[in-house]
């Protein structure tokens, strides 16, 4: 992926993987806060759950890294260019009338971006240790994508009119 930080060691890969999950936690927490402010408790709960799930992944990666200080290492690495890290759900897509299905749609897009990133590492890495670890992340992200698909099936596809507000914000004189 041309916008990704360069991964040239196992520590780089673990640091990027850690940061991807940490960014996702921060983003879902922010979205949960927005929904809480706008009195949408159902979506607040969905975003909180997503943040919790990403937090578990983040902590697992930190454990996996052992003696490598992934937090410090991630700070030293280049940032994602032209956008954000893969699992940061699109803040600009948030809407005050969005539904849990939309939240999961955002999560699905984020998981797919993460999957594409780890696949690109598998395809380009020359160090077999990096390839092996990236393959594990690919497997994990594939599971996440499938999980989000399953969760989406629990909710009805919102109608086309989902954003229609019967009392819309109108320009005021």
């Amino acid at each position, binding site marked *: 992926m041309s916008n990704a930080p360069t991964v040239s060691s196992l520590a780089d890969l673990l640091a990027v993987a850690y940061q991807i999950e940490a960014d996702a936690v921060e983003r879902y927490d922010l979205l949960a806060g927005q929904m809480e402010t706008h009195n949408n408790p159902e979506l607040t709960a969905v975003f909180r759950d997503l943040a919790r799930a990403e937090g578990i992944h983040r902590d697992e990666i930190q454990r996996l890294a052992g003696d490598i200080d992934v937090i410090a290492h991630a700070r030293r690495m280049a940032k994602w260019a032209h956008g954000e890290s893969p699992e940061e759900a699109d*803040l*600009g897509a948030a809407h005050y009338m969005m539904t849990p299905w939309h939240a999961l749609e955002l999560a699905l897009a984020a998981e797919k971006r993460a999957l594409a990133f780890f696949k690109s590492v598998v395809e380009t890495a020359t160090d077999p240790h990096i390839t092996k670890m990236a393959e594990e992340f690919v497997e994990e992200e594939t599971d996440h994508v499938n999980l989000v698909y399953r969760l989406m099936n629990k909710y009805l596809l919102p109608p086309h009119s989902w954003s229609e507000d019967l009392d819309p*914000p109108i320009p005021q004189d």
Partner: protein
Amino acid sequence: MSSVDERLACKPADYKSDIKPIWCPGCGDYHVLMSFTRAFAELGLPPERIVVVSGIGCSSRIPAYTNCYGFHGVHGRSLALGAGLKVTRPDLTVVVASGDGDGYSIGGNHFLHACRRNIDMTYVVMDNHIYGMTKGQPSPTTEPEFDTALSPGGTGLRPFHPLAVALASGANFVARCFSGEPNETASILVEAIRHPGFSFVEILSPCVTFRPDEREWKNLVHRAPVAATSDPARAARRIMTDDGFNLGILYRGDRKPYQPAVGHTSIDLSELEKDFEL
């Protein structure tokens, strides 16, 4: 940097306050806040060495959401406050935040003279082409064909061109960013803050409530195909001929910042009060 220093260095989250933003979901200003905190962390500035000054409007809520010193001033006067602060406390990093209504209409005259004066501070305008907080009135950057109950048939007015005005008035650094690219915006803010003199950064920041069409901006923005120039004539040509969605640093000047000598006065308050005695 040693690992101990890294531990002590502030992370972007350290620049956020505990106050939860009340912007609408989807608002570009969330991203701008993120860019601020990422830029401050990148600069390694302690929060207490930064002051975020603002006027009035949705965007002007931003000081409350940072953990730096802040001043939520009166409408259109953020630059006057920022300038006063910077000349008396040049040791502080002053970032002034505004919106297109606050900055280009109510505070329009301050904008001209802040550019001209070239005090070493950074002016960030979150431009959404609308007055959002007061519910959807056309602003100085609103397109002439913007047709609502408040502007039937469109405003018919030529939009204000902030970048051209900034350049013509003497701003020493002129850039345009898009809120949806917080990492790029943060990088440009870092450069703007480091650049001596008055730095002007316009951030296209969609108002998804009163301008839902601005959700499309993410598909319209594009990176400036050439590097920043220090030639104001070339910069003017670029700025006047671009499509309004050209992102990047468009001008980087080398004018010396204005910093008046501010001495300590020996007059105490009681002496000043005598002048106001009736």
